């Protein structure tokens, strides 16, 4: 159980994210393929691969690391994923700039900033069958946990449980945005690819920052 995470240790955070994305790429494309164009894993892993190249052997702070992957996504990926996840990481990174240790409040600010820009850019709501179905409940759970005054690790655990549940909820939704909306009712019955990647990404952050699982 950790109460804080040292901001100087950005490299494990970033490597954790990269590894998570790369090792789940095929699965993410497969899920996207059921209702979309089957490239979600390709899009995400392209960003991960490029981030690994940019990172090289550098040591980075958490803020630098998150902004690094954010900028790679923003500048090199395009589509809807580039700006959404790119801004997500950039805002997260920006919110811990100048901080020495990430405590539960700081992470709350980081997550809040990330959620805000995603809503601003993407405009998706819970129930639209997008990554917001994982992200928004996860943020709510985290805030709720904070109110109950747990440590960082426990709050992060609440977050990923809610993200996982949110992801599972997409299975019974009909897609309203993006390519999968072509299928209408037929999109029901499969997970949403973005919600799946979002849940994985939050879990990776929680694993590293919370030192847990």
């Amino acid at each position, binding site marked *: 159980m950790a109460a804080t995470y040292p901001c100087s240790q950005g490299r494990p955070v970033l490597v954790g994210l990269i590894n998570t994305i790369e090792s789940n790429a095929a699965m993410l494309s497969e899920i996207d393929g059921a209702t979309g*164009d089957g*490239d979600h894993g390709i899009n995400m892993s392209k960003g991960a691969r490029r981030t690994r190249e940019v990172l090289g052997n550098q040591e980075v702070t958490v803020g630098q690391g998150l902004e690094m992957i954010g900028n790679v996504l923003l500048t*090199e990926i*395009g589509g*809807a994923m580039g700006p959404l996840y790119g801004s997500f990481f950039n805002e997260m990174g920006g919110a811990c700039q100048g901080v020495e240790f990430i405590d539960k409040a700081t992470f709350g600010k980081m997550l809040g900033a990330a959620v805000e820009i995603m809503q601003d850019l993407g405009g998706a709501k819970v129930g639209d069958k997008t990554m917001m179905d994982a992200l928004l409940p996860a943020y709510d759970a985290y805030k709720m946990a904070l109110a109950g005054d747990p440590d960082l690790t426990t709050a992060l655990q609440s977050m990923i449980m809610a993200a996982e549940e949110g992801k599972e909820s997409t299975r019974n939704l009909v897609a309203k945005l993006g390519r999968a909306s072509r299928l209408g009712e037929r999109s029901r019955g499969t997970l949403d690819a973005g919600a799946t990647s979002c849940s994985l990404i939050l879990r990776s952050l929680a694993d590293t920052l919370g030192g847990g699982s």
Partner: protein
Amino acid sequence: MQRIINDPALVVEDMIEGFVKTYPHLVEKTGNPRVIKAVGIPRQGKVGVVTGGGSGHKPAFIGYVGRNLCDAVAIGEVFASPSAQIFFDAFKAADSGAGVACLYGNYAGDNMNVKLARRMAEKAGIRVETVIANDDVASAPLSEREKRRGVAGEVLMWKVAGAKAATGAPLEEVIRVAQKAIDHTRSIGVGLTSCTIPAAGKPNFYIEPGKMEVGIGHHGEPGISVMDLKPADEIARLCLERILPDLPFNSGDELVALVSGLGATPVMELYITYSKIHDLLGEAGLKVAHAYVGNYFTSLEMMGITVTLMKVDDELKELIMAEAESMGLTQSKLA
């Protein structure tokens, strides 16, 4: 997948290489490999006209960079918006200090990336104004016009704005005519077959033989209805029934028509369909000032057609009739 490509992950890079080798008199590379600009751009005092979007729609978007058309283009992956950075670099490539008119189609990815790119431009002191094409009547009801997609009507928007910018008009004026162009433009598409994104390797969606999908989008977005494949004359009629009341186009109006194939449609079918459209417009008391019929905005090897009409006044007509030169649209000055 019957494709003439090398690495499926590099089709856009490879395409750009071939494109600049083909048109050295019209376009050139920039510092960003995903941004191409017209020769001689930026030009002192001229507003930069920028567009961008996913690849696979050739001539759109890269094919409308040239003389009296777009000045720079942001090039995305196949059917995926270019990144914010690419849009921003296109703004930089086109800006002479007179500002940039970013004219693109209404898609989630493009909206987000342009939004972010504008923020970057603001910080860099580049003035960017946007017009978002939303000419596709099938994608949302008129009451929610802001939700509609941009399709082949974008070509007419670029033509008008490109001609205006070439006169040395200020940014506000270029934006005004671009907005006016798209506000006066309505389109609809009919799809007969699907297409295959090279990186995916299998068709993007499916249309049964003997069926057609009215209102389909450029990436296979769902249409209004799937019905039995109709004769060309009926398809022409169906399309006009959707388009004409939407603006509305009224008897006595003058217009510009654009009929585009979606990629694999034999070109003779475009003329067969346009013939009926022309006659139906005449019957409705509408006068065709000029018609573009050909492959102006495609979706890889989809079969199908898009029909676009723009109601013109003297200003729009003059801008359409102006000379232009690019891979996708070269015309001498028309009377």
